[in-house]
Protein backbone atom coordinates (compact mmCIF):
# COMPACT_ATOMS: atom_id res chain seq x y z
CA UNK A 1 0.00 0.00 0.00
CA UNK A 2 1.18 3.54 -0.67
CA UNK A 3 2.95 5.30 2.11
CA UNK A 4 1.29 8.37 3.57
CA UNK A 5 3.66 10.97 4.97
CA UNK A 6 1.12 12.10 7.58
CA UNK A 7 0.54 8.62 8.93
CA UNK A 8 4.25 7.91 8.85
CA UNK A 9 5.12 11.12 10.64
CA UNK A 10 2.54 10.24 13.26
CA UNK A 11 3.79 6.71 13.79
CA UNK A 12 7.41 7.78 14.00
CA UNK A 13 6.50 10.50 16.46
CA UNK A 14 4.61 7.97 18.55
CA UNK A 15 7.58 5.63 18.41
CA UNK A 16 9.76 8.39 19.80
CA UNK A 17 7.18 9.09 22.49
CA UNK A 18 7.04 5.47 23.58
CA UNK A 19 10.83 5.31 23.71
CA UNK A 20 10.75 8.43 25.86
CA UNK A 21 8.49 6.58 28.29
CA UNK A 22 11.43 4.35 29.18
CA UNK A 23 13.44 7.06 30.93
CA UNK A 24 10.10 8.35 32.18
CA UNK A 25 9.49 5.04 33.87
CA UNK A 26 13.03 5.05 35.19
CA UNK A 27 12.42 8.37 36.93
CA UNK A 28 8.94 7.41 38.09
CA UNK A 29 10.38 4.35 39.77
CA UNK A 30 13.74 5.88 40.61
CA UNK A 31 12.13 8.61 42.71
CA UNK A 32 10.21 6.02 44.69
CA UNK A 33 13.17 3.99 45.88
CA UNK A 34 15.59 5.02 48.58
CA UNK A 35 18.52 7.14 47.49
CA UNK A 36 20.99 4.30 47.82
CA UNK A 37 19.17 2.32 45.14
CA UNK A 38 18.17 4.97 42.62
CA UNK A 39 21.00 4.44 40.15
CA UNK A 40 20.38 0.76 40.08
CA UNK A 41 16.82 1.52 39.01
CA UNK A 42 18.01 3.90 36.33
CA UNK A 43 20.70 1.53 35.10
CA UNK A 44 18.26 -1.36 34.83
CA UNK A 45 15.78 0.74 32.92
CA UNK A 46 18.31 2.08 30.47
CA UNK A 47 20.03 -1.24 29.95
CA UNK A 48 16.75 -3.04 29.40
CA UNK A 49 16.07 -0.76 26.43
CA UNK A 50 19.23 -2.03 24.80
CA UNK A 51 18.81 -5.69 25.63
CA UNK A 52 15.20 -5.90 24.56
CA UNK A 53 15.74 -3.90 21.38
CA UNK A 54 18.55 -6.12 20.20
CA UNK A 55 16.63 -9.29 21.05
CA UNK A 56 13.65 -7.82 19.23
CA UNK A 57 15.64 -7.24 16.06
CA UNK A 58 17.23 -10.65 16.12
CA UNK A 59 14.15 -12.77 16.66
CA UNK A 60 11.57 -11.16 18.94
CA UNK A 61 9.82 -9.22 16.23
CA UNK A 62 9.45 -12.12 13.90
CA UNK A 63 8.11 -14.40 16.64
CA UNK A 64 5.45 -11.81 17.34
CA UNK A 65 4.62 -10.49 13.89
CA UNK A 66 6.05 -12.92 11.38
CA UNK A 67 3.75 -15.06 9.24
CA UNK A 68 1.97 -17.48 11.50
CA UNK A 69 3.50 -20.92 11.99
CA UNK A 70 0.08 -22.40 12.60
CA UNK A 71 -2.90 -21.95 14.86
CA UNK A 72 -2.15 -18.35 15.58
CA UNK A 73 0.38 -19.44 18.17
CA UNK A 74 3.66 -17.93 17.00
CA UNK A 75 5.21 -16.04 14.15
CA UNK A 76 7.71 -17.67 11.81
CA UNK A 77 11.22 -16.49 11.07
CA UNK A 78 10.49 -14.36 7.99
CA UNK A 79 11.54 -11.18 9.77
CA UNK A 80 14.43 -12.64 11.80
CA UNK A 81 17.23 -10.11 12.03
CA UNK A 82 14.85 -7.53 10.57
CA UNK A 83 15.09 -9.35 7.25
CA UNK A 84 12.62 -8.38 4.52
CA UNK A 85 12.11 -4.92 5.98
CA UNK A 86 9.76 -3.91 3.20
CA UNK A 87 7.29 -6.75 3.67
CA UNK A 88 4.15 -5.91 5.56
CA UNK A 89 2.97 -7.80 8.60
CA UNK A 90 0.40 -10.36 7.44
CA UNK A 91 -3.08 -8.99 7.90
CA UNK A 92 -2.10 -5.38 8.49
CA UNK A 93 -2.92 -2.81 5.84
CA UNK A 94 -1.02 0.31 6.72
CA UNK A 95 0.17 3.42 4.96
CA UNK A 96 3.47 3.43 6.77
CA UNK A 97 6.83 1.77 6.07
CA UNK A 98 6.78 -1.73 7.61
CA UNK A 99 9.99 -0.98 9.43
CA UNK A 100 8.31 1.95 11.16
CA UNK A 101 5.73 -0.47 12.48
CA UNK A 102 8.42 -2.90 13.63
CA UNK A 103 10.15 -0.10 15.49
CA UNK A 104 6.94 1.12 17.09
CA UNK A 105 6.29 -2.41 18.34
CA UNK A 106 9.88 -2.68 19.54
CA UNK A 107 9.26 0.14 21.94
CA UNK A 108 6.24 -1.68 23.34
CA UNK A 109 8.37 -4.69 24.10
CA UNK A 110 10.95 -2.44 25.76
CA UNK A 111 8.45 -0.69 27.94
CA UNK A 112 6.62 -3.80 29.04
CA UNK A 113 9.82 -5.46 30.12
CA UNK A 114 10.94 -2.32 31.88
CA UNK A 115 7.84 -2.38 34.06
CA UNK A 116 9.23 -5.41 35.84
CA UNK A 117 12.08 -3.39 37.30
CA UNK A 118 9.52 -1.83 39.62
CA UNK A 119 8.50 -5.14 41.10
CA UNK A 120 11.99 -6.35 41.83
CA UNK A 121 13.35 -3.00 42.94
CA UNK A 122 16.21 -2.77 45.45
CA UNK A 123 17.33 -6.38 45.32
CA UNK A 124 17.76 -7.60 41.75
CA UNK A 125 21.13 -8.52 40.35
CA UNK A 126 21.95 -6.40 37.34
CA UNK A 127 23.32 -9.20 35.18
CA UNK A 128 20.65 -11.64 36.27
CA UNK A 129 17.88 -9.21 35.46
CA UNK A 130 19.24 -8.50 32.00
CA UNK A 131 19.42 -12.20 31.21
CA UNK A 132 15.91 -12.60 32.55
CA UNK A 133 14.74 -9.70 30.39
CA UNK A 134 16.13 -11.20 27.21
CA UNK A 135 14.45 -14.53 27.83
CA UNK A 136 11.24 -12.95 28.97
CA UNK A 137 10.77 -10.95 25.77
CA UNK A 138 11.12 -14.08 23.71
CA UNK A 139 9.15 -16.51 25.81
CA UNK A 140 6.46 -14.34 27.33
CA UNK A 141 6.08 -11.06 25.51
CA UNK A 142 6.50 -12.18 21.90
CA UNK A 143 3.97 -15.02 22.05
CA UNK A 144 1.38 -12.85 23.78
CA UNK A 145 1.95 -10.09 21.25
CA UNK A 146 1.42 -12.62 18.46
CA UNK A 147 -1.80 -13.90 19.98
CA UNK A 148 -3.31 -10.46 20.47
CA UNK A 149 -1.60 -7.81 18.35
CA UNK A 150 -0.93 -9.81 15.22
CA UNK A 151 -4.15 -9.95 13.19
CA UNK A 152 -3.58 -13.65 12.69
CA UNK A 153 -3.06 -14.42 16.39
CA UNK A 154 -5.53 -16.77 17.97
CA UNK A 155 -6.92 -14.33 20.52
CA UNK A 156 -7.18 -11.57 17.92
CA UNK A 157 -9.12 -13.89 15.67
CA UNK A 158 -11.41 -14.78 18.54
CA UNK A 159 -12.34 -11.12 18.68
CA UNK A 160 -10.37 -9.98 21.69
CA UNK A 161 -10.21 -6.20 21.58
CA UNK A 162 -7.00 -4.83 22.99
CA UNK A 163 -6.22 -1.48 21.46
CA UNK A 164 -2.75 -0.86 22.83
CA UNK A 165 -1.97 -3.62 25.25
CA UNK A 166 -4.30 -4.17 28.20
CA UNK A 167 -3.43 -7.84 28.03
CA UNK A 168 -0.10 -7.88 26.18
CA UNK A 169 1.40 -5.06 28.18
CA UNK A 170 -0.44 -4.40 31.41
CA UNK A 171 -1.86 -7.69 32.62
CA UNK A 172 1.20 -9.41 31.30
CA UNK A 173 3.44 -7.09 33.32
CA UNK A 174 1.31 -7.43 36.43
CA UNK A 175 1.15 -11.22 36.40
CA UNK A 176 4.82 -11.51 35.52
CA UNK A 177 5.69 -9.11 38.32
CA UNK A 178 3.88 -11.32 40.79
CA UNK A 179 5.74 -14.40 39.65
CA UNK A 180 9.02 -12.53 39.72
CA UNK A 181 8.69 -11.26 43.27
CA UNK A 182 7.56 -14.63 44.54
CA UNK A 183 10.77 -16.11 43.20
CA UNK A 184 12.90 -13.17 44.33
CA UNK A 185 11.61 -12.92 47.86
CA UNK A 186 11.05 -9.85 49.99
CA UNK A 187 13.40 -6.97 50.51
CA UNK A 188 15.25 -7.05 53.83
CA UNK A 189 13.13 -5.22 56.34
CA UNK A 190 9.90 -5.37 54.40
CA UNK A 191 7.12 -4.89 55.41
CA UNK A 192 8.23 -3.46 58.74
CA UNK A 193 10.42 -0.66 57.39
CA UNK A 194 8.62 2.00 55.45
CA UNK A 195 11.10 2.51 52.58
CA UNK A 196 9.74 5.89 51.67
CA UNK A 197 10.40 7.52 48.29
CA UNK A 198 13.62 9.50 48.21
CA UNK A 199 12.54 12.08 45.64
CA UNK A 200 8.92 12.62 44.78
CA UNK A 201 9.78 15.40 42.33
CA UNK A 202 11.73 12.81 40.35
CA UNK A 203 8.73 10.51 40.48
CA UNK A 204 6.44 13.28 39.30
CA UNK A 205 8.84 14.01 36.47
CA UNK A 206 8.51 10.40 35.47
CA UNK A 207 4.74 10.58 35.72
CA UNK A 208 4.69 13.66 33.51
CA UNK A 209 6.82 11.98 30.88
CA UNK A 210 4.70 8.84 31.04
CA UNK A 211 1.48 10.80 30.59
CA UNK A 212 2.99 12.59 27.60
CA UNK A 213 4.40 9.42 26.13
CA UNK A 214 1.21 7.46 26.62
CA UNK A 215 -0.36 9.56 23.88
CA UNK A 216 2.11 7.87 21.58
CA UNK A 217 1.41 4.48 23.07
CA UNK A 218 -2.36 4.61 22.68
CA UNK A 219 -3.08 7.09 19.92
CA UNK A 220 -0.14 5.70 18.02
CA UNK A 221 -1.82 2.30 18.12
CA UNK A 222 -4.39 3.69 15.71
CA UNK A 223 -1.49 3.37 13.25
CA UNK A 224 -2.71 6.33 11.25
CA UNK A 225 -3.42 9.98 11.91
CA UNK A 226 -7.19 10.35 11.68
CA UNK A 227 -10.40 10.19 13.64
CA UNK A 228 -9.51 7.05 15.52
CA UNK A 229 -6.19 8.39 16.71
CA UNK A 230 -7.86 11.63 17.77
CA UNK A 231 -10.44 9.76 19.83
CA UNK A 232 -7.78 7.51 21.33
CA UNK A 233 -5.78 10.58 22.25
CA UNK A 234 -8.55 12.32 24.12
CA UNK A 235 -9.70 9.11 25.78
CA UNK A 236 -6.19 8.45 26.98
CA UNK A 237 -5.97 11.89 28.47
CA UNK A 238 -9.38 11.75 30.10
CA UNK A 239 -8.77 8.38 31.68
CA UNK A 240 -5.59 9.75 33.23
CA UNK A 241 -7.66 12.61 34.60
CA UNK A 242 -10.31 10.25 35.90
CA UNK A 243 -7.71 8.02 37.50
CA UNK A 244 -6.11 10.96 39.24
CA UNK A 245 -9.43 12.15 40.60
CA UNK A 246 -10.55 8.70 41.64
CA UNK A 247 -7.40 7.85 43.53
CA UNK A 248 -7.08 11.27 45.14
CA UNK A 249 -10.70 11.41 46.24
CA UNK A 250 -10.65 7.99 47.86
CA UNK A 251 -7.31 8.57 49.48
CA UNK A 252 -8.57 11.83 50.87
CA UNK A 253 -11.65 10.13 52.26
CA UNK A 254 -9.61 7.33 53.80
CA UNK A 255 -6.72 9.28 55.29
CA UNK A 256 -7.72 12.92 55.26
CA UNK A 257 -4.98 13.72 52.76
CA UNK A 258 -4.73 13.65 48.98
CA UNK A 259 -1.08 12.94 48.25
CA UNK A 260 1.07 13.97 45.35
CA UNK A 261 2.17 10.42 44.77
CA UNK A 262 -1.47 9.36 44.90
CA UNK A 263 -2.35 11.86 42.20
CA UNK A 264 0.46 10.59 40.01
CA UNK A 265 -0.34 6.95 40.72
CA UNK A 266 -3.98 7.52 39.94
CA UNK A 267 -3.13 9.09 36.61
CA UNK A 268 -0.97 6.10 35.75
CA UNK A 269 -3.74 3.74 36.86
CA UNK A 270 -6.13 5.52 34.51
CA UNK A 271 -3.64 5.36 31.67
CA UNK A 272 -3.14 1.66 32.25
CA UNK A 273 -6.87 0.96 32.19
CA UNK A 274 -7.54 2.97 29.04
CA UNK A 275 -4.74 1.23 27.18
CA UNK A 276 -6.90 -1.62 25.87
CA UNK A 277 -9.90 0.66 25.44
CA UNK A 278 -8.64 3.92 23.97
CA UNK A 279 -9.78 3.25 20.42
CA UNK A 280 -13.10 1.62 21.28
CA UNK A 281 -14.84 3.89 23.79
CA UNK A 282 -16.04 7.47 23.83
CA UNK A 283 -14.89 10.35 25.99
CA UNK A 284 -17.46 9.89 28.73
CA UNK A 285 -16.61 6.22 29.10
CA UNK A 286 -12.94 7.12 29.23
CA UNK A 287 -13.52 9.30 32.28
CA UNK A 288 -15.50 6.54 33.97
CA UNK A 289 -12.84 3.94 33.21
CA UNK A 290 -10.26 6.29 34.67
CA UNK A 291 -12.26 6.80 37.85
CA UNK A 292 -12.72 3.06 38.28
CA UNK A 293 -9.06 2.42 37.72
CA UNK A 294 -8.01 5.08 40.21
CA UNK A 295 -10.19 3.50 42.84
CA UNK A 296 -9.15 -0.03 41.97
CA UNK A 297 -5.49 0.89 41.98
CA UNK A 298 -5.65 2.45 45.43
CA UNK A 299 -7.16 -0.67 46.90
CA UNK A 300 -5.02 -3.05 44.90
CA UNK A 301 -1.71 -1.64 46.09
CA UNK A 302 -2.61 -2.68 49.61
CA UNK A 303 -3.05 -6.33 48.69
CA UNK A 304 0.65 -6.96 48.95
CA UNK A 305 0.57 -6.20 52.66
CA UNK A 306 -2.31 -8.55 53.17
CA UNK A 307 -0.85 -11.35 51.11
CA UNK A 308 2.79 -10.82 51.92
CA UNK A 309 4.39 -10.51 48.47
CA UNK A 310 6.85 -7.68 48.16
CA UNK A 311 5.91 -6.05 44.88
CA UNK A 312 8.13 -3.08 45.63
CA UNK A 313 6.60 -0.40 43.43
CA UNK A 314 3.19 -1.95 42.85
CA UNK A 315 3.38 -3.36 39.37
CA UNK A 316 0.80 -5.96 40.30
CA UNK A 317 -1.52 -3.44 41.90
CA UNK A 318 -1.29 -0.71 39.30
CA UNK A 319 -0.59 -2.52 36.04
CA UNK A 320 -2.07 -5.92 36.71
CA UNK A 321 -5.29 -4.90 38.40
CA UNK A 322 -5.97 -1.79 36.35
CA UNK A 323 -5.12 -3.71 33.20
CA UNK A 324 -7.88 -6.14 34.11
CA UNK A 325 -10.26 -3.26 34.80
CA UNK A 326 -9.57 -1.76 31.40
CA UNK A 327 -9.69 -4.98 29.44
CA UNK A 328 -13.04 -5.90 30.91
CA UNK A 329 -14.29 -2.34 30.52
CA UNK A 330 -13.96 -2.75 26.75
CA UNK A 331 -16.60 -5.45 27.04
CA UNK A 332 -18.88 -2.91 28.65
CA UNK A 333 -18.15 0.39 26.95
CA UNK A 334 -17.00 -0.46 23.41
CA UNK A 335 -19.18 1.47 21.01
CA UNK A 336 -19.52 1.18 17.26
CA UNK A 337 -19.69 4.98 17.00
CA UNK A 338 -16.04 5.09 17.83
CA UNK A 339 -14.90 1.88 16.22
CA UNK A 340 -16.91 -0.62 14.18
CA UNK A 341 -14.72 -3.40 15.58
CA UNK A 342 -16.98 -4.18 18.48
CA UNK A 343 -19.99 -3.43 20.63
CA UNK A 344 -19.89 -3.78 24.36
CA UNK A 345 -22.74 -4.47 26.74
CA UNK A 346 -23.88 -0.85 26.85
CA UNK A 347 -23.87 -0.55 23.09
CA UNK A 348 -26.26 -3.45 22.79
CA UNK A 349 -23.59 -6.01 22.14
CA UNK A 350 -24.67 -8.30 24.94
CA UNK A 351 -22.19 -10.30 27.00
CA UNK A 352 -20.32 -11.81 24.09
CA UNK A 353 -17.51 -9.29 23.96
CA UNK A 354 -17.21 -9.22 27.73
CA UNK A 355 -16.70 -12.97 27.67
CA UNK A 356 -13.97 -12.73 25.09
CA UNK A 357 -12.28 -10.02 27.09
CA UNK A 358 -12.45 -12.16 30.22
CA UNK A 359 -10.85 -14.98 28.29
CA UNK A 360 -8.08 -12.61 27.29
CA UNK A 361 -7.54 -11.63 30.90
CA UNK A 362 -7.28 -15.20 32.07
CA UNK A 363 -5.05 -16.37 29.26
CA UNK A 364 -2.66 -13.44 29.53
CA UNK A 365 -2.41 -13.58 33.30
CA UNK A 366 -2.07 -17.34 33.45
CA UNK A 367 0.48 -17.66 30.67
CA UNK A 368 2.56 -14.75 31.89
CA UNK A 369 2.58 -15.92 35.48
CA UNK A 370 3.56 -19.47 34.70
CA UNK A 371 6.28 -18.85 32.16
CA UNK A 372 7.76 -15.93 34.08
CA UNK A 373 8.02 -18.01 37.22
CA UNK A 374 9.90 -20.61 35.24
CA UNK A 375 12.31 -18.14 33.69
CA UNK A 376 12.92 -16.46 37.02
CA UNK A 377 13.67 -19.79 38.66
CA UNK A 378 16.07 -20.78 35.94
CA UNK A 379 17.94 -17.48 36.15
CA UNK A 380 17.89 -17.64 39.94
CA UNK A 381 19.53 -21.06 39.88
CA UNK A 382 22.09 -20.24 37.21
CA UNK A 383 23.30 -16.63 37.02
CA UNK A 384 21.53 -15.58 40.17
CA UNK A 385 18.67 -13.08 40.29
CA UNK A 386 19.20 -11.54 43.69
CA UNK A 387 22.13 -9.67 45.20
CA UNK A 388 23.83 -10.65 48.43
CA UNK A 389 22.37 -9.27 51.64
CA UNK A 390 25.23 -6.94 52.38
CA UNK A 391 24.87 -5.35 48.96
CA UNK A 392 21.20 -4.73 49.55
CA UNK A 393 22.07 -3.12 52.87
CA UNK A 394 24.80 -0.96 51.44
CA UNK A 395 22.66 -0.02 48.52
CA UNK A 396 22.83 -1.29 44.98
CA UNK A 397 24.26 1.96 43.67
CA UNK A 398 27.54 1.57 45.39
CA UNK A 399 27.60 -2.19 45.69
CA UNK A 400 26.67 -3.04 42.11
CA UNK A 401 27.46 0.05 40.09
CA UNK A 402 30.28 1.61 42.16
CA UNK A 403 28.59 4.99 42.01
CA UNK A 404 26.82 7.49 44.24
CA UNK A 405 23.69 9.16 42.97
CA UNK A 406 23.96 12.53 44.68
CA UNK A 407 27.06 14.34 45.88
CA UNK A 408 25.54 17.63 46.90
CA UNK A 409 28.16 18.55 49.43
CA UNK A 410 30.66 19.30 46.75
CA UNK A 411 32.45 15.99 46.88
CA UNK A 412 35.41 16.84 49.08
CA UNK A 413 37.95 14.19 49.64
CA UNK A 414 37.86 12.33 46.34
CA UNK A 415 40.92 11.73 44.25
CA UNK A 416 41.75 9.92 41.06
CA UNK A 417 43.68 6.78 41.56
CA UNK A 418 46.04 6.86 38.72
CA UNK A 419 46.27 9.10 35.73
Amino acid sequence: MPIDAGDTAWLMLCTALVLFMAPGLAFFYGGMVRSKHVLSMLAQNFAVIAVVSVVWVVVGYTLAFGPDVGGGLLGGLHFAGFANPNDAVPGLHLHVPPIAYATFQMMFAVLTTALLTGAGADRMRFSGFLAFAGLWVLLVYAPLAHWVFSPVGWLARRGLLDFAGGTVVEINAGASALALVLVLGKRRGWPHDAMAPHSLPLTLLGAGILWFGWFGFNAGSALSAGDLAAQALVSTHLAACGGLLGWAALEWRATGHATTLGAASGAIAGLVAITPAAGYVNSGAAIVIGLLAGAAGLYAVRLKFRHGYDDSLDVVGVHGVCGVVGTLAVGLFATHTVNPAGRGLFDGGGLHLLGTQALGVVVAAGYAFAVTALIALVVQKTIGLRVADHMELQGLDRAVHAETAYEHGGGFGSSNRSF
Partner: protein
Amino acid sequence: MQLITAIIKPFMLDQVRPALEQLGVYGMTVTEVSGFGRQKGHTEIYRGAEYQVSFNPKLRLEMVVDDLQVDAVLDALVSSARTGSIGDGKIWTTPVGALVRVRTGERGTDAL
Protein backbone atom coordinates in the same frame (compact mmCIF):
# COMPACT_ATOMS: atom_id res chain seq x y z
CA MET B 1 34.03 29.83 77.89
CA GLN B 2 31.21 27.48 77.26
CA LEU B 3 29.82 25.82 74.20
CA ILE B 4 26.05 26.19 74.08
CA THR B 5 24.28 23.67 71.88
CA ALA B 6 20.61 24.26 71.14
CA ILE B 7 18.19 22.01 69.29
CA ILE B 8 15.28 24.05 67.98
CA LYS B 9 12.41 23.89 65.55
CA PRO B 10 13.68 24.85 62.08
CA PHE B 11 11.40 27.79 61.51
CA MET B 12 12.30 29.41 64.84
CA LEU B 13 15.79 30.39 63.71
CA ASP B 14 14.54 33.66 62.32
CA GLN B 15 13.25 34.51 65.80
CA VAL B 16 16.33 33.28 67.63
CA ARG B 17 18.98 35.16 65.72
CA PRO B 18 17.75 38.67 66.47
CA ALA B 19 17.34 37.74 70.14
CA LEU B 20 20.97 36.65 70.27
CA GLU B 21 22.20 39.61 68.35
CA GLN B 22 20.70 41.83 71.01
CA LEU B 23 23.10 40.18 73.43
CA GLY B 24 25.97 40.74 71.06
CA VAL B 25 26.16 37.11 69.98
CA TYR B 26 26.61 37.06 66.22
CA GLY B 27 28.67 33.96 65.67
CA MET B 28 27.00 30.60 65.44
CA THR B 29 27.22 27.34 63.53
CA VAL B 30 24.00 25.70 62.38
CA THR B 31 23.42 22.10 61.36
CA GLU B 32 20.30 20.44 59.99
CA VAL B 33 19.54 17.42 62.13
CA SER B 34 16.85 14.87 62.85
CA GLY B 35 15.43 14.84 66.35
CA PHE B 36 14.00 11.92 68.26
CA GLY B 37 12.14 12.61 71.50
CA ARG B 38 8.82 12.93 73.19
CA GLN B 39 7.39 14.57 70.13
CA LYS B 40 6.45 11.35 68.46
CA GLY B 41 7.41 11.87 64.85
CA HIS B 42 4.60 12.09 62.40
CA THR B 43 2.58 10.09 59.96
CA GLU B 44 3.09 10.20 56.23
CA ILE B 45 1.22 8.45 53.48
CA TYR B 46 2.66 6.29 50.75
CA ARG B 47 0.17 5.05 48.20
CA GLY B 48 -2.70 4.99 50.61
CA ALA B 49 -0.72 3.33 53.40
CA GLU B 50 0.18 5.35 56.47
CA TYR B 51 3.63 5.03 57.91
CA GLN B 52 5.40 6.47 60.86
CA VAL B 53 8.41 8.73 60.55
CA SER B 54 9.87 8.61 64.00
CA PHE B 55 11.97 11.79 63.90
CA ASN B 56 11.34 15.44 63.21
CA PRO B 57 13.63 17.85 61.40
CA LYS B 58 15.40 20.24 63.76
CA LEU B 59 18.20 22.74 63.65
CA ARG B 60 21.22 22.35 65.87
CA LEU B 61 22.81 25.65 66.87
CA GLU B 62 26.22 25.80 68.41
CA MET B 63 27.84 28.87 69.82
CA VAL B 64 30.85 29.38 72.00
CA VAL B 65 30.20 32.19 74.47
CA ASP B 66 31.95 33.83 77.34
CA ASP B 67 31.12 32.35 80.76
CA LEU B 68 29.55 35.63 81.82
CA GLN B 69 27.09 35.49 78.95
CA VAL B 70 25.93 31.93 79.37
CA ASP B 71 22.88 32.64 81.47
CA ALA B 72 21.69 35.52 79.36
CA VAL B 73 22.08 33.46 76.21
CA LEU B 74 20.22 30.51 77.70
CA ASP B 75 17.36 32.79 78.67
CA ALA B 76 17.28 34.44 75.27
CA LEU B 77 17.27 31.05 73.57
CA VAL B 78 14.49 29.69 75.72
CA SER B 79 12.27 32.67 75.22
CA SER B 80 12.89 33.14 71.49
CA ALA B 81 12.74 29.47 70.46
CA ARG B 82 9.70 28.55 72.47
CA THR B 83 6.40 27.84 70.75
CA GLY B 84 5.02 26.08 73.80
CA SER B 85 4.24 22.86 72.01
CA ILE B 86 6.06 19.60 72.38
CA GLY B 87 9.33 19.25 70.51
CA ASP B 88 10.57 22.78 71.07
CA GLY B 89 13.97 21.32 71.82
CA LYS B 90 16.81 21.26 74.33
CA ILE B 91 19.75 23.41 75.15
CA TRP B 92 22.89 22.23 76.88
CA THR B 93 26.28 23.61 77.74
CA THR B 94 29.70 22.02 77.77
CA PRO B 95 32.93 23.57 79.00
CA VAL B 96 35.36 24.87 76.40
CA GLY B 97 39.10 24.60 76.91
CA ALA B 98 40.71 26.55 74.11
CA LEU B 99 39.17 28.69 71.40
CA VAL B 100 41.12 29.85 68.36
CA ARG B 101 40.25 32.08 65.44
CA VAL B 102 41.73 30.47 62.36
CA ARG B 103 42.24 33.69 60.44
CA THR B 104 44.43 35.34 63.08
CA GLY B 105 45.41 32.59 65.48
CA GLU B 106 43.92 34.70 68.31
CA ARG B 107 42.99 32.64 71.33
CA GLY B 108 40.43 32.74 74.10
CA THR B 109 37.66 35.31 74.25
CA ASP B 110 39.56 37.43 71.76
CA ALA B 111 38.69 34.81 69.21
CA LEU B 112 34.98 35.31 69.71
